[in-house]
């Protein structure tokens, strides 16, 4: 004789069985998300991409969220504020115990910086000790840093680059709104300033080992010059001397040259082989061994990357 239950479907065993079978979701309506089928790749939901400011009047639909989510968010904010105040207090307390500011007897003024200052000129050929340090003693770090810039530009290309021919034309059309139609002041200023900016940038790159400067600052200035030119005269004119093809060639050549010079330097140094790179006379432009070519490669790469960021952000392509 079995006991008949009126509500068998909702008994504990049937609920457990449903969970084991994967038919129920314990967290429905509180915090969980129920995934559905995803669209195939390539169907990027770029709905109404050219209506940047025109849909602001539409309010996003308000729907009820679980109370759990609300309390969780309040809790998270309270804990975060406490955490930040705690961090600031702990750090300020630590600063009180650090070595004094500007004191010559600090632990970090030791034999490492002594050798950089006293023998840097003889060993690297660079008058600027900081450039000698980052491009000769610690060249591997700087190569890693150039690769950081390279990989960031690759990721931005994944996100913003438009390959499809039709979409590219659409982008070019919608970008015309931002291009100035022969603005006299902008074009006049750019006509005068852009050559000066380029020359100044090249000067800073070439003088990296003689005075404050180097590949990164010079490259940023040249990138700024390119951006000014493009803003004033439009992408069409810039593409005459700097389009996507040239960008790829320039970037790859610069980084590969840097890599090859660096590798030659590391391998000959580690194996004890003499590397026959002349250090030249300190104070001349053609001196300092590997520093001048590396500065040049780095400057080229930074300029290309800065311009690429601008072009990708503005219209999805160079």
């Amino acid at each position, binding site marked *: 004789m079995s006991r008949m239950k009126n509500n068998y479907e909702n008994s504990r065993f049937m609920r457990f069985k449903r969970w084991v079978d994967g038919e129920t979701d314990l967290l429905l309506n509180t915090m969980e*998300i*129920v*995934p*559905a089928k*995803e669209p195939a790749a390539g169907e990027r*939901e*770029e709905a109404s*991409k050219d209506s940047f400011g025109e*849909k602001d009047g539409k309010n*996003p639909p308000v729907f009820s969220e679980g109370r759990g989510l609300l309390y969780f*968010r309040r809790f998270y904010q309270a804990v*975060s504020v406490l*955490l*930040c105040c705690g*961090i*600031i207090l702990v*750090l*300020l*307390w630590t*600063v*009180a*115990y*650090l*070595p004094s*500011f*500007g*004191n*010559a007897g600090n632990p*970090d003024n030791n034999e*490492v*910086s*002594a050798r950089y*200052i*006293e*023998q*840097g*000129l003889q060993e690297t050929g660079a008058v*600027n*000790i*900081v450039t000698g*340090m*980052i491009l000769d003693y*610690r060249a591997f770090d*700087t190569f890693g*840093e150039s690769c*950081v*810039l390279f990989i*960031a*530009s690759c*990721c*931005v290309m994944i*996100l*913003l680059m438009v390959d499809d021919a039709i979409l590219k034309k659409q982008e070019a059309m919608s970008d015309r709104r931002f291009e100035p139609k022969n603005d006299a002041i902008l074009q006049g200023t750019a006509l005068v300033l852009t050559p000066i900016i380029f020359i100044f940038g090249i000067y800073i790159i070439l003088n990296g080992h003689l*005075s404050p400067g*180097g590949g*990164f600052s010079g490259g940023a200035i040249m990138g700024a010059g390119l951006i000014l030119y493009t803003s004033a005269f439009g992408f069409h004119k810039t593409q005459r001397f700097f389009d996507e093809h040239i960008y790829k060639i320039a970037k790859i050549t610069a980084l590969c040259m840097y890599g090859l010079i660096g590798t030659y330097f590391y391998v000959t140094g580690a194996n004890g082989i003499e590397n026959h790179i002349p250090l030249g006379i*300190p104070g001349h432009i053609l001196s300092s061994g590997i520093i001048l070519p590396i500065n040049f490669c780095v400057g080229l790469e*930074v300029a290309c990357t800065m311009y690429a960021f601008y072009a*990708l*952000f503005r219209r999805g392509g160079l």
Partner: protein
Amino acid sequence: MGPNLFINYGEAVAMLLFGIGFGNLLLQSNLIKKIIGLNIMDTAVYLFLAEKGYIAGRVAPIVADGVQDMEAYINPIPSGLVLTGIVVSVSVSALMLALTIRLYRRYHTLDLDEISRQLKKEGL
């Protein structure tokens, strides 16, 4: 409290800025404000690092007039590290901004909580 809190006033300001940037990155729901918080935080670390190199009464480490005495120049190492750090900060900011642009084009809002809600609604 240690002895150097007011002598190290530069580092103290750097820590304050670090905390402010950290808080902004965690707490703000607007994506652009989060990115600004990230930049403040990174800049604070570079300020801290740059101050480590300073030695009172000495000049920048560019060999002038052939003087190569250690007592004439400040410590060059922190300056080199800051150079590397700035480039990393720029790259990361550019990447975050590109992500923000994509999210804005899709969801028309810059609020990260709002975007999560819309995702939940889409069920994707």
